[in-house]
């Protein structure tokens, strides 16, 4: 394995971890897979582009704006669309369709921004990358993105863990996820905890999206393409376990990049475009043999039976 490939893999896995964690969090609260999640990230891919090329500021600033912009995009979906539908006792299928509808609106906004940037301001907005920032700036002799992305992912995962386990609000949030009516009975504002979890979910996606163009070539459909990897990561980890999302995100991210790299070295570069087949295969295998994901398997029982 070459060093650049390993670097790419770790950066991509870090970004994917942020994305899959958010997806799992909202799935746990509202019990609906959010099909717009990929484009929460894509919105911020373009915001980072605006920051770097239009405002000429270091695009790492996008991480901060990304958190709030992604969070706001996500909160809007929950408050304006999903909450009213939940109040009307809509089925999860209706909620899924609503997230797809919101996704279409995001696709539209992203493309309008991209068209506007390229037509009015002559900024390349399709198939662009900002590697000159991610790789041009070095920290400790390493490309900065290789330091920032894993560090940020680890930091976010740890702070989310502390938030859910050590703060009063986080514990209330877990209670609301486990049993909404019981939580409501003891005075927890379930609606507020759900809204916060949607905001965090979108914020994480926003940070992931803000970092993405520093590492890979992005396009208006990047969010849509990423969605397969995000879902695969969440499902492989287990859609009902937040720690599964950390695990799944990192595993799928590594498997996707290293697997494609390994196959490309052995069989030639024609395999590279088929990269999404790797997460899909892992997802299909998980659904067939362990539908509750890696964290849903009762490992202790499995080993006891084995011995």
């Amino acid at each position, binding site marked *: 394995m070459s060093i650049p490939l390993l670097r790419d893999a770790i950066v991509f896995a870090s970004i994917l971890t942020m994305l899959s964690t958010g997806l799992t969090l909202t799935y746990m609260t509202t019990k609906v897979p959010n099909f717009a999640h990929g484009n929460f990230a894509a919105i911020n891919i373009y915001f980072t582009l605006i920051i770097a090329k239009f405002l000429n500021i270091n695009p790492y600033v996008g991480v901060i704006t990304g958190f709030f912009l992604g969070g706001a995009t996500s909160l809007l979906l929950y408050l304006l669309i999903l909450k009213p539908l939940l109040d*009307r006792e809509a089925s999860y*299928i209706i909620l899924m369709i609503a997230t797809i509808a919101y*996704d279409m609106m995001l696709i539209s906004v992203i*493309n*309008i921004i991209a068209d506007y940037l390229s*037509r009015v301001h002559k900024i390349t907005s399709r198939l662009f990358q900002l590697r000159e920032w991610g790789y041009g700036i070095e920290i400790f002799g390493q490309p900065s993105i290789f330091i920032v992305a894993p560090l940020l992912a680890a930091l976010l995962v740890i702070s989310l863990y502390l938030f859910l386990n050590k703060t009063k609000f986080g514990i209330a949030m877990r209670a609301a996820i486990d049993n909404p009516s019981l939580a409501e009975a003891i005075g927890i504002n379930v609606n507020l905890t759900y809204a916060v979890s949607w905001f965090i979910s979108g914020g994480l996606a926003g940070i992931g999206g803000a970092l993405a163009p520093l590492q890979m070539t992005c396009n208006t459909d990047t969010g849509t*393409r990423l969605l397969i990897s995000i879902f695969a990561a969440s499902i492989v980890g287990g859609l009902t376990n937040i720690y599964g999302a950390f695990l799944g995100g990192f595993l799928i991210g590594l498997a996707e990049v290293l697997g494609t790299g390994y196959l490309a070295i052995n069989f030639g570069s*024609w395999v590279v*475009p*088929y990269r999404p087949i790797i997460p899909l295969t892992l997802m299909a295998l998980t659904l067939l043999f362990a539908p509750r994901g890696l964290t849903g398997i009762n490992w202790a029982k499995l080993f006891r039976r084995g011995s």
Partner: protein
Amino acid sequence: MELSVIYIFLTNLAILIGLFAIISLSLNLEYGYAGIPNFGKLLAVAGGAYFVGALSGRALAIAYGQPAGLGYIERNIEVVGFLNGVLSSSPLHSIVFLIMSIVGAAFFGGLLGYVSSYPAIRLRGDYLAITLLAMGEILWVIGDNWQPLIGGSMGVRIPDPFRWVGGQYRPLAILLTVLITAAIVFIYLEYLGRAPLGRVLKAIRENELSAGVHGKDVVRLRTKTLIVGFAIAAISGALNSLWTVSVSPKDFERVRHTFMPWVMVMIGGAGNNLGAVIGAMIFVTLRELIVFYKHFFEAIVPFDVIWLEYLFLGLALIIVLMYRPEGLLPEKPTKTLSAKKLKAIASRVEPAKEKAT
């Protein structure tokens, strides 16, 4: 505006309405009747088109001793030109080619439905939706990159089975074929909906557990529904490519072939076949009008107007979900036999009972 422009616009519009009506009818069977969230409509439609591009054209090439391997792609224009020459002089061969393409695409679509739904068919619907959506994207990746299949992103030309009717009548011949197919699909699905199978599917949709308790094999019925739904949608894809006489991966995308049919079914009225058709009529007409008048808007706004359509579609769908979830034409109660027939049956049964007691 010239008369010929209107004529072309209207025939194109009617063909598109027919094609999308077939897709939304198939989605109505899957979602409206059986409650399966099939987010992989793209998979079925593109599957049907890819079948025509990759296999039925090649079958014809073999029959006439033309290169059918990689040569079919590399010398595509030459080969298809020769085949068109053959087809244009022989209506019989053209019709056989047309029917074989449609039937083959339906079978291929059904197979695709079975294979792609297999990993998640036993789980809750959202897993199935995710899997089918992902499979659709994967099919696009394969079609766009694997040259030998349908020529990669360049696409491939296919022989034209409507050439023999003559240039000016060609659109009408296609329109007739599409409308007849759509009518057959509509009648078949209406029949299916009124048959016991339709009622079983609705029972599964309403309560999977109780349907299972009453001895219905839920997984098997769901698989069957998906196979039929995929087959029907694949027919639409096949007809689409036979109309444009080319298959290209970029013609089939998620928004157009997964999302639009969902909008049509939800707004037309899920569980109502007529609603699905009306939904198709409304949205295809709107879309074609936007495309037709695109250049007027283009001068005003600094972006492609087509994106406004996405925004509008998403918004329309959300509004319908919130304020009129049953759609324009709500689902009707299940049709039963008429009172007269029921009485007739009762009178036949009653004497038998009396005799027995």
